[in-house]
């Protein structure tokens, strides 16, 4: 590829980019034997496809419709990705095709712990089920928190964990066509929402990080993950989440820079913890934040350089809430609709 003048992106080594003299760009993304080509330079794309045909045994499949088990639907609004077929297969495999759907993936009243007194369940079966759910989270940020919860018990699953995993399947049953809509917003704005559930784990009291990033108004990446160390204050947990969110934004910026898409305004970081925002801006030493120097200085540095700006959002409009705790049906649906998730299918 490099012979043709394509450059490998530093943000992802499977991404190849070529800029033409006229300012056009051609983008190539490789996944083992699948290749996606896009960009605004039609001519270069035709040359590329001819080159594929002569040098390699590569077949043109036309417009992107199906990629790694992900369905891509084109419409006037933009396009929509979902994994409906994968969900149908999962329902068949787990014998849940006739189950009663539930409105949320996590029961807000249950705190999942290690429950040693409960019956052990078949580990292999549990791991396979959770593995399939993890793959589904490519198009389903709505189950990300639920999946991160059940995947914490892979080594010793008990009945309660299996029930929690099956609840996710039951939730999917009611919403198999839900996926992410990519709209034409004519923008390359970068934004992130970070949130944390302080000491949320009943097993080891670690906190859970949750963040979403939006590029041009479309949801692109997210994470729901238990932090690797115990935080001693909620501000400490919040800083860790903010730092992780910033890292993700920086990665996105690297990709955009490789594509020569400029975004000069600061990237917005939304957070619902006022004290964390004020400490981030204020270099004064606080006793309780001494040990989180690194994250704090990292955030401060990015703020000072004008790369990032923080914004307060009320807990009500905090989108990342869904990544750190089990919510009730109303709040859950409210956030889902704001994420740009849509349902193309209504169950009978």
């Amino acid at each position, binding site marked *: 590829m490099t012979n043709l003048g394509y450059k490998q992106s530093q943000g992802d080594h499977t991404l190849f980019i070529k800029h033409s003299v006229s300012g056009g760009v051609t983008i190539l993304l490789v*996944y083992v034997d699948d290749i996606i080509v*896009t960009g605004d330079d039609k001519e270069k794309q035709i040359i590329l496809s001819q080159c594929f045909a002569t040098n390699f045994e590569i077949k043109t499949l036309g417009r992107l419709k199906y990629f790694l088990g992900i369905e891509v639907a084109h419409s006037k609004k933009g396009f929509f990705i979902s994994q409906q077929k994968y969900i149908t297969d999962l329902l068949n495999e787990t014998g849940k095709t006739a189950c009663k759907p539930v409105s949320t993936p996590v029961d807000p009243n249950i705190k999942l712990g290690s429950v040693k007194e409960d019956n052990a369940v078949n580990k292999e079966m549990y791991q396979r089920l959770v593995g399939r759910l993890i793959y589904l989270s490519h198009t389903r940020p709505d189950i990300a928190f639920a999946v991160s919860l059940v995947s914490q018990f892979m080594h010793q699953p008990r009945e309660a964990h299996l029930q929690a995993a099956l609840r996710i399947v039951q939730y999917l049953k009611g919403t198999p066509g839900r996926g992410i809509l990519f709209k034409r917003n004519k923008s390359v704005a970068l934004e992130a929402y970070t949130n944390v559930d302080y000491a949320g784990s009943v097993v080891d009291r670690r906190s859970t990080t949750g963040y979403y990033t939006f590029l041009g108004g479309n949801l*692109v990446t997210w994470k729901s993950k238990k932090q690797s160390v115990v935080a001693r204050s909620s501000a400490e947990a919040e800083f860790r989440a903010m730092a992780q969110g910033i890292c993700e934004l920086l990665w996105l910026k690297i990709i955009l820079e490789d594509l020569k898409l400029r975004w000069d305004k600061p990237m917005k970081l939304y957070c619902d913890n006022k004290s964390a925002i004020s400490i981030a801006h204020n270099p004064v030493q606080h006793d309780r934040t001494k040990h989180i120097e690194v994250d704090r200085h990292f955030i401060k540095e990015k703020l000072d350089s004008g790369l990032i700006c923080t914004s307060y959002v009320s807990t009500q409009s905090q989108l990342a809430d869904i990544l750190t705790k089990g919510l009730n049906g109303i709040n859950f649906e409210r956030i889902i609709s704001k994420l740009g998730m849509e349902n193309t299918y209504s169950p009978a």
Partner: protein
Amino acid sequence: MAKGFTQTYGVDYLETFAPIAKMNTVRVILSLVANHDWDLQQFDVKNAFLHGELEEEIYMDLPPGYDGQVAVGTVCKLKRLYMG
């Protein structure tokens, strides 16, 4: 690579590269395509390199479940490229 724990890129094996795109990157590209109204084409490589010819000798432990009678510590030599 099957049991990649002792290999070092470019040291223990020649330039093999399993190009696996991050799903995050895929979504980033999709968002850009939607916002810029770009065309989106897909290509498929016929018979990838799953059964490529080997250019150097590679040995591996016997696969688990191999029940032929062999001495302890026997390894096997790969005749074909092996993905997994």
